[in-house]
């Protein structure tokens, strides 16, 4: 898909550091990796650097096969006509006999650890999709490299197979002596494989930090929705936070856009916290779906942090149902389907929301 996207990304990844690129479809994750790998060319006048090497820019172009940036793709792309072992040592073939022999031994050891030793002479075309995905990463990790690129390596796998693949790959990465860049849609990939996160929006880097920082205090709409939080702009004063009903940041995550379409205009709303916020002024307020409880009628607990609303949309997440509220706050609340049925939570139904202020994260914008 030839597509023109202006990229503006500048991130440093140290040896042993593992950076997850996250962002909605079309945000530029794969484009960044393909440019780094040398599979696509940047537009004239732009520059792509890796370490101290200018890969493209000012007329310099290093061929993909000379960059030492092996890449794993969303499909395993094992060579189906070669044996598993030949696949794994393919990258070392150019580096001379002794390097090839060492790689061969490392490959055999890794296969044994995975319990796949019996597959060593099997043609790669005969493997299951889970085995292929794991071995594709292994092939990439075994190739001579100044950095390793993974592009959604487990996105084509079933939930459980992906979980196994992730835990198999987890161990190798701890010993990887070079930087790793991983593009992913899956928060489980980030939890299992990454140390840092870079959030891309429409080709632009909008947040960069450790996994914990980004999960705790997302500063963009996509990052918040990636870690499962609703994010609102607000203004804090003592124990009160005036929350604006609008999402901050550019609209790009697909599901958010859908919600926006069905959401009536929302007014500001005041949350009373149990303790003071760190500083008065503009803040972000991050709300977990479990912070809000829905009731079919007004609960008896008192007037604080309780409001009447209508259901704007319902969505199924596995066996849970995600209810999106209308005014005053377009909060998303996850409940068991059984609960949704009991609440009669169809679009347009009236429900009562109650928020637990202690589970809000409030931090300076």
């Amino acid at each position, binding site marked *: 898909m030839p597509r023109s996207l202006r990229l503006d990304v500048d991130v440093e990844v140290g040896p042993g550091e593992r950076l997850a690129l996250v962002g909605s479809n079309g945000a530029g994750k794969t484009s960044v990796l393909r440019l780094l790998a*040398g599979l696509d060319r940047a537009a004239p006048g732009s520059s792509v650097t890796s370490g101290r090497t200018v890969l493209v820019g000012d007329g310099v172009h290093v061929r993909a*096969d000379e960059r030492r940036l*092996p*890449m794993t793709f969303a499909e395993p792309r094992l*060579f189906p006509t070669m044996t598993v072992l030949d696949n794994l040592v393919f990258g070392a*073939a150019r580096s001379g006999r002794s390097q090839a022999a060492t790689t061969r031994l490392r490959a055999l050891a890794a296969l044994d650890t995975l319990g796949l030793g019996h597959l060593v002479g099997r043609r790669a075309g005969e493997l299951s999709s889970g085995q292929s995905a794991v071995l594709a990463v292994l092939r990439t990790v075994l190739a001579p490299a100044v950095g390793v690129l993974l592009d959604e390596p487990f996105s084509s796998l079933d939930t459980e197979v992906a979980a196994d693949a992730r835990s198999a790959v987890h161990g190798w990465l701890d010993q990887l002596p070079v930087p790793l860049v991983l593009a992913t849609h899956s928060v489980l990939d980030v939890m299992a494989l990454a140390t840092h996160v870079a959030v891309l929006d429409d080709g632009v880097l909008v947040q960069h930090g450790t996994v914990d920082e980004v999960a705790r205090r997302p500063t963009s709409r996509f990052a918040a929705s990636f870690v499962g939080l609703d994010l609102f702009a607000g203004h804090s004063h003592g124990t009160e936070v005036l929350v604006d009903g609008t999402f901050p940041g550019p609209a790009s995550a697909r599901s958010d856009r859908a919600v926006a379409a069905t959401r009536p205009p929302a007014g500001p709303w005041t949350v009373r916290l149990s303790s003071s916020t760190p500083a008065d002024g503009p803040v972000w307020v991050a709300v977990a779906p479990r912070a809000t409880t829905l009731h079919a009628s007004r609960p008896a607990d008192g007037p604080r942090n309780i409001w009447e609303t209508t259901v704007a949309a319902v969505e199924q997440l596995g066996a849970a149902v995600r209810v999106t509220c209308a005014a005053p706050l377009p909060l998303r609340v996850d409940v068991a389907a059984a609960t949704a049925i009991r609440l009669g939570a169809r679009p347009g139904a009236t429900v009562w929301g109650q928020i637990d202020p202690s589970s809000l994260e409030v931090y300076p914008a």
Partner: protein
Amino acid sequence: MPAWLWLPAGTAVVVLVLPLVVLLARTPWPDAITLLSSSTVRDAFALSLWTATTATAVSALLGVPLAWWLGTGTSRGQGLVRLLVTIPLVLPPVVGGAALLFTYGRGAPVGSLVWNLAGVTVPFTTAAVVIAQVFVAMPFLVVSLEGAFRARGVLLEEAALTLGGDPWTVFRRVTLPGLRPALLGGIALCWARAVGEFGATITFAGSIRSVTQTLPVAIDELLGHDLDAAMVASSLMIGLAVVVLV
């Protein structure tokens, strides 16, 4: 399927299958060995085998790179080239033979060039048989391989490049092995078409015993004076066709 449709469907099968069954049934099998070793059939059979094989080899050498370009390149003009090289697929072989004659004949542009340079004439030689076979059979190889190239894309090649494989290694170890089934299929098709070639051959190369008289040409001639030999030769070619199909 409504019952009355069985009538036309059954008729279709009879029309297509009956002649083959009758031919195989009437073939004088006891005399087959004798008839096959009669010099006309034997010479024609040998000539057919080696011209078809040569034509297939030439087609593969020239056709694989062309199919590669058509299947993976993104140049403009590809559509036009694809159309042009598939014309021989639907062109009556006789017309192909005529076109070859008008091109490589002694008075023709390329023919006179060859005559001036090398002092040979092309038509009515064994070379003409091979050229005619290449002309009608190579498009089959190109078309089937092009589809295979297109279906494969360049996914594996990209992976191989990032792993550090240089372009020639990638072609040799990744691209070519992946194409094997399609290549074998295309070669079988091309060979079958070449071995059965008649119209272009008789027009461009004629029917000279041991020089240009391939098996189909010989069958046409034998029908005039030796029905038994024609039957045996025809049955032989049905056998070849079934082998290629299966």
